[in-house]
């Protein structure tokens, strides 16, 4: 049943997000063309002022999309959970022969796939932008400079960073699910849901800094990889705890009035 749930989640995701991805890819291609055109003009500023303005606009749109897309994907996934489980659509979803763990699992897996795809698309588009661009041009533009530095990072560190971002992303998703679940069993009281979400974030930050302090006290201050691994483990443990808590709510406390 889990695979069937994922299939339907994926169909909905493709239907909703394919247009965003296509627009993003088109914007990246246009930005790349503009960079190439601007580079070909050299230092003759008057000749390429129009291209520069266009490049600034497209560059801004691309940056905006790059920052917003993972968050839009997260908000969409969280909203879909709420709609599927606790609105009128819940009359269909909650009567399927599927366990609560499968419901949550399917949405999380789809959220993860959506996040990874979004990151991959952003990464590929950024690689496309900086490929073949003069070192001098990159150094002139701090954004591209940063991007190039990012791609040149050690692969292991990059993967650790990526794993950390995935575990944080899953944690935020689960926190949203938990807040929605608690709001639903408390007659839709948003204040409770918001309180739980804020408390969760604050708690995560406190525990995260406590881990960092403990590690520092044990002499691993300069081993950033060890810190990242500890944070990943912490978030994974928190994720598993929240997963079981939401499953418990859906199984034993669901009240779709």
């Amino acid at each position, binding site marked *: 049943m889990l695979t069937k749930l994922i299939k339907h989640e994926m169909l909905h995701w493709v239907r909703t997000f394919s247009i965003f991805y296509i627009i993003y890819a088109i914007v990246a291609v246009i930005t790349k063309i503009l960079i190439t055109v601007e580079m070909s003009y050299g230092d003759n500023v008057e000749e390429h002022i129009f291209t520069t303005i266009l490049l600034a606009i497209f560059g801004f749109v691309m940056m905006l999309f790059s920052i917003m897309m993972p968050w839009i994907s997260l908000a969409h996934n969280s909203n879909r959970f709420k709609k599927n489980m606790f609105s009128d659509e819940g*009359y269909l979803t909650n*009567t399927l*022969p599927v*366990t609560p763990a499968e419901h949550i699992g399917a949405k999380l897996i789809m959220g993860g796939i959506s996040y990874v795809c979004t990151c991959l698309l952003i990464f590929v588009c950024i690689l496309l932008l900086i490929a073949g661009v003069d070192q001098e041009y990159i150094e002139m533009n701090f954004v591209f400079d940063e991007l190039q530095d990012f791609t040149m990072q050690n692969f292991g560190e990059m993967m650790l960073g990526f794993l950390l971002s995935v575990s944080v992303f899953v944690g935020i998703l689960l926190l949203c699910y938990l807040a929605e679940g608690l709001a639903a069993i408390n007659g839709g009281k948003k204040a409770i849901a918001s309180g739980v979400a804020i408390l969760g974030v604050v708690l995560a930050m406190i525990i995260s800094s406590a881990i960092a302090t403990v590690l520092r006290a044990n002499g691993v201050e300069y081993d950033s990889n060890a810190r990242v691994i500890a944070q990943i483990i912490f978030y994974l443990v928190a994720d598993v705890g929240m997963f079981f808590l939401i499953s418990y709510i859906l199984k*034993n406390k669901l009240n779709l009035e």
Partner: protein
Amino acid sequence: MAELVKCENVSKFYGKKEALSSLTLNLESGKIIGLLGPNGSGKTTLIKLLCGLLTPTNGQLSVCGLSIGAETKAMVSYLPERSYIPEWMKVSDILDYFQDFYADFRRGLAEDMFSRLNIDLGQKVKTLSKGNKEKVQLVLVMSRNAKLYLLDEPIAGVDPAARDYILDTIISNYNPEASVVISTHLITDIERIIDDVVMLQYGHLKIHGSADAIRAEKGMSIDELFREVYRC
């Protein structure tokens, strides 16, 4: 007759308000059961408890001897009193959905009923009229070869012609070995088709028995009895 549904001392509270009060009830298979009672008597609550949309405050519920969960949901076909199909879906999408999740779904039967209703499979749910949305949901529910059909107010708010269509669809498509629970307060329309009667009042079981036996014992129709029991 095999015991299909078992409720033992089931209570349900919404906050401090008691919707069902220590309800003990057994339903057999192979029957069409009228779940009757005025608004607020606990009909919808009982149905939602049986299909897992609500969890009881106290007591035990089972369908085919199993506690309510994924296994019982595979055997129960539920028609809610509201529209639950996502608006963005096409009729064909929802057929795919039911086919994927319910092993007992008879797609051919559903397509045949849609064709007779002139409902295009490529049509989006949001473009359907309210009446057609209700018919789509009914077709989906009755196209399953379920062991228990739970129909919550299937004939409320529809015209008499649609009522006839709905009741004919129920009678001609349900699995004869299954039971159909129809919740309503429009007794006249369903009296001709029900085998058993369950009457609820303020969350308590008022009357439960065979429709024929009740008519013979009380010397009146179920509709007349309903009016007498629930007289304001």
